[in-house]
């Protein structure tokens, strides 16, 4: 069984939580922090750290609005994030010989 060189993969995306976030966001137009936390079975802290890293790289856009006196955090993948995600999947498939 051949080993895969992780250095060839995008380090910002590569990581279980960030992978999950990117996979989820790539399939939808937008989501909320609460929904994402529930779907990924993550703690608020872990999700927040992962989102901050993806946001700093410009892969996701996080916006906060106030609706019915509650803060609503909306997250969506950016165009740059979609390109990075597509490239990451291509690399994965290439490494797996798919």
């Amino acid at each position, binding site marked *: 069984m051949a*080993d*895969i*060189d992780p250095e060839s993969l995008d380090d910002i995306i590569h990581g279980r939580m960030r992978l999950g976030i990117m996979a989820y966001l790539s*399939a*939808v*137009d937008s*989501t*909320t922090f609460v929904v994402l936390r529930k779907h990924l079975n993550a703690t608020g802290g872990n999700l927040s750290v992962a989102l901050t890293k993806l946001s700093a790289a410009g892969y996701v856009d996080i916006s906060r609005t106030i609706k019915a006196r509650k803060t609503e955090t909306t997250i969506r993948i950016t165009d740059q994030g979609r390109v990075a995600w597509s490239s990451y999947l291509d690399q994965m498939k290439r490494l*797996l010989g798919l």
Partner: protein
Amino acid sequence: MRPGSPTSRTQAQEDLAFLRTIAEQAQATPPTGGPLLLWWGCLLACSYLAHGAILMGWLPIKPWHLGFLWLAAMIVGWLGHTLIWRHLQPGTETTAALVLHQAWLFGGIVITLIGVSANLRAMTGAMDPIVFPMFGVMCLALYSIVFMLFGAAGRFAHYRSFGVAGAGVAIALVWLIGSPLFYLAVPFGFVIAVILPALHMIRSAR
């Protein structure tokens, strides 16, 4: 498969399977607009019942007041819509749900404007009596088209079934136009084509 640690093909395959599951779950997320759909379905069903009751003389209101009934229904409808929308639990917006919400909103605005226009004509006495019944048929047809679009875009077979049911009800109702039964049948149509899908949507969004 972690950076700096030995990784295997099996692990990469597991990661890909994980990603696929997450993406599929995301795409299958139900829309959040169920309460809005329920609100409009109930309001229109009740308005048609009231319309029928007035025509049959069950309510002590003169038929020429029907225009006011519908204007009031539209105003109450949009006020309720705004109130519910403000308190609607935010969720995931899939592309299919985006299509659904936009079609509802745009369709709702167009239907309202047609309703207002029809009312103005009714108040000037220049209205063909077929317009009010056709308004209900058009609403049901709109709902069925939107459900068909949503079912196709999101690959939700049950929403396509709701769409087919709605279209069937709308077509069947045309045959009742002119009969007093029409106004009793329209609310039944709204239950099948709007209220039941709305309840399904609310339940699946929980």
